[in-house]
């Protein structure tokens, strides 16, 4: 990896770290929603730096786009600031976090290097798909071919999951038509601080 790309990675990861700390510290929910959107955008940029364009695009559309707007919509139903928590130093929790973090970092030593051609992801089915995709489907974007053709069953299941999620939320919260019939009910919004 050349030094420029390494610098880009370090800068983007540092931004992610700063945003994550800010999200933990800030109490204003609106600022947290916006920072979460910024976090998604920066991760999308980082995925581009890792050559994962499709993942980056999905992250930008889903993480920065729809999640932010859905969180804004959800935030309008609740209060504007997070609850004040008691400050406490819990040594057991801190210990668990530190040990888990150390184990995870230790595990990354065994991960293959970025772009390693002999890594399992690139050597086995990945290489098979790359070799066959043109003859099998004639689709230039291998990601689309794998997603829609080779793994059509998976994608059907994912589509079903999204449909089920939408219907489940609508069944729990109502289909949205009630705002037209019942008018503005400011008395129903108890428990919010402004």
């Amino acid at each position, binding site marked *: 990896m050349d030094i420029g790309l390494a610098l880009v990675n370090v800068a983007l990861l540092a931004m992610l770290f700063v945003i994550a700390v800010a999200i933990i510290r800030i109490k204003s929910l609106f600022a947290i929603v916006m920072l979460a959107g910024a976090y998604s955008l920066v991760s999308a940029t980082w995925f581009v730096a890792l050559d994962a364009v499709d993942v980056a695009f999905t992250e930008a559309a889903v993480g920065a786009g*729809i999640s932010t707007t859905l969180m804004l919509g959800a935030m309008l139903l609740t209060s504007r600031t997070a609850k004040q928590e008691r400050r406490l130093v819990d040594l057991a929790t801190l210990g668990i976090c530190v040990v888990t973090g150390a184990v995870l970092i230790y595990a990354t030593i065994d991960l293959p290097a970025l772009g390693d051609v002999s890594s399992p992801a690139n050597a086995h089915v990945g290489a098979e798909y790359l070799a066959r995709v043109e003859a099998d489907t004639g689709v230039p974007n291998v990601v689309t071919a794998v997603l829609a053709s080779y793994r059509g069953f998976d994608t059907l299941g994912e589509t079903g999951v999204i449909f089920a999620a939408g219907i489940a939320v609508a069944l729990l919260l109502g289909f949205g038509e009630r705002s037209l019939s019942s008018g503005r009910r400011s008395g129903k919004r108890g428990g919010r601080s402004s």
Partner: protein
Amino acid sequence: MTDHHVILRVISKMLIPVVVVYAFYVQFHGDYGPGGGFQAGVILAVAMILFALIFGIREALAAVPAAFARGVAGTGLLLYAGVGLWAVFNGGDYLDYDYLVEEEPGGHAGQHLGILLIELGVLFTVAGSMLTIFYAFAGRVVEIRDEDW
């Protein structure tokens, strides 16, 4: 309501059609570049949600009724599953796009048609479901109050 969001409204009026066109670009360009039904559906839903946030949920419900949104979501899933059944009726396995059309061995018309159709199904389901979820949240607050902006 006095319109002190006039800049926001004018700018978004210009931008929302561009967002919608971009969603369709992502949808139909998915074979060649990054993107596809999931991303396009989300972008399409975002365009509609942006409209609802800026012009009010009533206007949005008048433009795209909630029943239409969830109907589209169901239609998409049925379209996807239907493509699979179509391949079965033509003698192939479920979702085997090669059997969708009669063609020479090695031809890719069936694959292209199948991917186009199932991506359309994904677009419908994702856009419809996301909009349904947003309506479920937003339908409880009629109007965004000024201090919330």
